[in-house]
């Protein structure tokens, strides 16, 4: 078991990342809270040895995505997020940022993680494929389609 100091350090370093992935997937604060607790408890109980900060961060991203997916697999949960609920989630941000977040959050589930990892975290398609245990070509395809959707939503000229 990891120490309290290690847990607090991890919360300080990775809570924003976990929070962003939760935002991509989840619509309720209580679900986010559940995922937070689940992910950091797994970290405390995990005996995994990380070679670098990047390695550790990738672990948090993978565990958070998987935890969110597991939560959403619940039979009683809806897999699609109604647009009104997305509005509720993003309305506290500036209008420009809010519209971007809204566009990302309204993407189909299969695109959301890839867009987030590619555009925000800066992972390459190869790294995303490795992280998400997907074929690289699949990642390229999904990324290309996600770009198309975002271009439509956010304006094609600016989107690169």
């Amino acid at each position, binding site marked *: *078991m*990891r*120490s*309290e100091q290690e*847990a*607090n350090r991890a*919360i*300080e370093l990775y*809570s*924003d990342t*976990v*929070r*962003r992935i939760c*935002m991509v997937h989840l619509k309720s604060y209580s679900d*986010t*809270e559940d995922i*937070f*607790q689940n992910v*950091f*408890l797994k970290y*405390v*109980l995990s005996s995994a040895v990380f070679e670098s900060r990047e390695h550790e961060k990738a672990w948090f991203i993978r565990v958070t995505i998987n935890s969110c997916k597991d939560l959403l697999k619940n039979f009683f949960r809806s897999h699609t997020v109604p647009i009104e609920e997305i509005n509720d989630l993003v309305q506290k*941000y*500036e209008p*420009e*940022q*809010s519209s*971007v*977040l809204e566009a*990302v959050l309204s993407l189909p589930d299969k695109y959301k993680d890839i*867009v*987030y990892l590619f*555009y*925000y975290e800066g992972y390459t398609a190869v790294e995303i494929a490795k992280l998400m245990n997907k074929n690289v070509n699949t990642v390229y395809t999904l990324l290309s389609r996600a770009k198309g959707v*975002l271009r439509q939503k*956010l304006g094609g000229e*600016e*989107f*690169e």
Partner: protein
Amino acid sequence: MSNKIKNAFDNVHAEEALKQSTGKYLIEKTNNYGKKYFSKAVKIGVSFACVAVITAGFAGYHMYFTPVSAISLDVNPSVELNINRFDRVVSVEAYNDEGEELVNSENLKYMDYSSALEKLMTSDNIEEYIEKGEAVSITVSVDNEKKRDEMISSISSCEYAKQKGVTCSGRNKEYWDEAHNAGLSLGKYKAYLELKELDPSVTPDDISGLTMREIHDRIQSFKGDNDQSQDIVTGNNENTCSVKGNGKCNIK
């Protein structure tokens, strides 16, 4: 546009309340990161240690205060020293008024049996009886034969046991119980059985008030003058204790 996505997500932060509730949750779920488990383990360990100490204390107490052997001194005063496994006197019983007087005049508890017996034998009370030519019977009762021999040997080698009229003998624990059931001390019970063989009508009550000399005289009157009790061994002096093996008077 990638910058827009980056800027948008840059503004998403984990709420402080979320971090704090997660921190608290981890403390709760991990029992304060194993510290509670540790303190629980320590508590359990301390409890076991306490139980072990108390148990050992009771066992030690029981062991110390449980007599495993007895030495009976019978003249007219009849007293019995109950001895623990460490050769210490743990209780003293008087079987008649003279015995009560003798016990009250000497503090014998927790002394080693040799010293306690010496104290009794050299007391004015007993010396007076010996000077009058009374018979003094020392009877050791213990189940372990080796221990019995060792005790008899140790007592027999002491000066007080070499005086005229002093006899000593050994019996097992069963004999001790029988004597108590008859309400007699070991020495008197031994003499009672001897007399009963010659005179079946005799009862414990008949002899409880007699001195050892009086009982021996009765026995002699039945047996005839030339017969001697099997426990009275004649050495250089008549009627002295026998010394078996390399007995030493272990008075501490």
